[in-house]
């Protein structure tokens, strides 16, 4: 019987030096050292404390460490030593605190059930050296785990089986509900999850149906009110910019985010259409830029988006008008000299 290495919230037994657990513990400790010193971490205490506070509502948290990783995309990773990594792209995608709590609870459930250790054993048992070399080549076990890409590779190397996912669904749901978070947020979260994330968390109708059934079995009670994440507001423009730079089709993502009615999210959807540039996208981009400008928090970037779109389409009067508005609304924009050049050329 293998030593139980990882117990959430409890002191850990030191693994035997020649055991599998010792190998895993060494790899993960080294990875966490790299992550702790990574330039990709968000150091803002308010943001880190907020995420940690949710973790602490979900479970005993004294032994857990939370790291917020500045990177687009939906990703959360619980290392088998109690380090929890949360991508800023995840925070951008959460409609409310309950969704974030359910996502964190799901990952914490993987940690509590020691699923990563099981995966490590499977690698040793079934694929042996070849698998380990593959892990090493992806940056896990050797080299730095300091960039978001290498952190994601680390997570992918401990991907979980379908049965482990179902177990984490159930435990995570119970954990979040016990903390007062509405269980209905769990299936909503998985339905909204994007393709990248679902590759690692295969959802499927069957799994969603099972989750829905679990939700219906939860005892009736009053759940915490769950507002949008307040501490993320100062970062919204930056995170939206990072998503738009990913060179992937972000229309689905921003269609979801634009439901919030926030001006920056509507601008993001306009930019997603403008950058994609398929037939019909220009009209959709223009309509979403205008919708952004109609929002109470109308972002100046929507004027720039309208200007770039009109310039690309050869509509010089519209481009001039939009860029002129952008200059007025964002006099200190760091692309002002370029906008002035566009205006001079139009």
């Amino acid at each position, binding site marked *: 019987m293998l030593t139980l290495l990882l117990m959430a919230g409890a002191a850990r037994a030191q693994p035997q030096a020649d055991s599998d657990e010792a190998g895993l513990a060494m790899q993960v400790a080294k990875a966490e050292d790299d992550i702790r010193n990574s330039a990709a971490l968000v150091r803002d205490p308010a943001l880190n404390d907020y995420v940690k506070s949710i973790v602490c509502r979900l479970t005993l948290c004294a032994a857990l460490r939370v790291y917020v990783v*500045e990177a687009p995309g939906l990703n959360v990773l619980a290392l088998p030593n109690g380090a929890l990594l949360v991508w800023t792209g995840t925070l951008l995608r959460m409609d409310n605190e309950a969704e974030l709590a359910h996502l964190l609870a799901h990952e914490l459930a993987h940690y509590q059930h020691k699923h990563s250790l099981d995966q490590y054993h499977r690698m040793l048992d079934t694929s042996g050296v070849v698998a380990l070399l593959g892990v090493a080549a992806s940056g896990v076990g050797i080299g730095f785990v300091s960039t978001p890409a290498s952190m994601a590779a680390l997570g992918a190397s401990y991907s979980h089986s379908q049965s482990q996912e179902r177990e984490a669904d159930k435990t995570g749901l119970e954990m979040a509900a016990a903390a007062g978070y509405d269980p209905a947020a769990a299936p909503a979260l998985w339905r909204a999850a994007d393709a990248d994330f679902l590759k690692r968390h295969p959802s499927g109708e069957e799994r969603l149906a099972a989750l829905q059934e679990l939700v219906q079995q939860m005892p009736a009670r009053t759940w915490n009110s769950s507002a949008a994440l307040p501490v993320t507001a100062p970062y919204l423009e930056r995170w939206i910019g990072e998503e738009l730079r990913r060179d992937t089709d972000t229309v689905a993502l921003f269609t979801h985010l634009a439901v919030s009615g926030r001006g920056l999210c509507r601008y993001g959807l306009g930019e997603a259409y403008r950058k994609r540039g398929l037939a019909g996208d220009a009209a959709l981009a223009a309509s979403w830029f205008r919708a952004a400008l109609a929002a109470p928090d109308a972002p100046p970037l929507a004027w720039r988006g309208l200007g770039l779109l009109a310039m690309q389409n050869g509509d010089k009067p519209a481009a001039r008008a939009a860029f002129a508005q952008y200059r007025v609304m964002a006099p200190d924009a760091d692309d002002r*000299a370029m906008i002035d050049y566009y205006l001079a050329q139009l």
Partner: protein
Amino acid sequence: MKRAALLLCLGLMACAMHSMEAGEDGTVGNGVSARAEPGFAQIHLAGMRYWTQHGTGLDELAFYTGIKDGQPLFRTPGVRIGEMPVYRARMTPNDIQDLVVASLGKKKMQNVRAGPLRPCPFGSAQGFCFDLTLANDEGLEMRGRAIASARGGVLDLLVFTAPAQFYFTQVSPAVDRIFASIQVK
């Protein structure tokens, strides 16, 4: 022995290097040429062309020329070609700045930020330029500068990066002169 080892290394890395004469006109691709500054060497590494004073990784001026619609700016070991962001002929300078940031991110650079975006002469052609701040995969803070021009749907781009401490300050005046010396046919 050392020479043999160096040759073996260069052979294995598909790498070639030669010192440049100050004032040497170097054609860097797609009809773009620039004048070398004292102390620079030219390195061909994995199909890419770099100019450097102290060695790539310490200071490097990379030339990405003749990029056509649908092509990435460069290839990166360990990243499949389909995963690299690609240039589109319809891109505006704002979009190309985003493309550079995203591409450097694929090159294991972190916290890549760009700005201010501004028009800059690119030889006799109109171009644009912007500054960069970033960190490498070991967290070393770096700075950079990029200049680009898109003509006829084809992009030419020069990107200079160096550690923020010492090397950027040391080398960037020469790089600015190289940028100012660009000629296009």
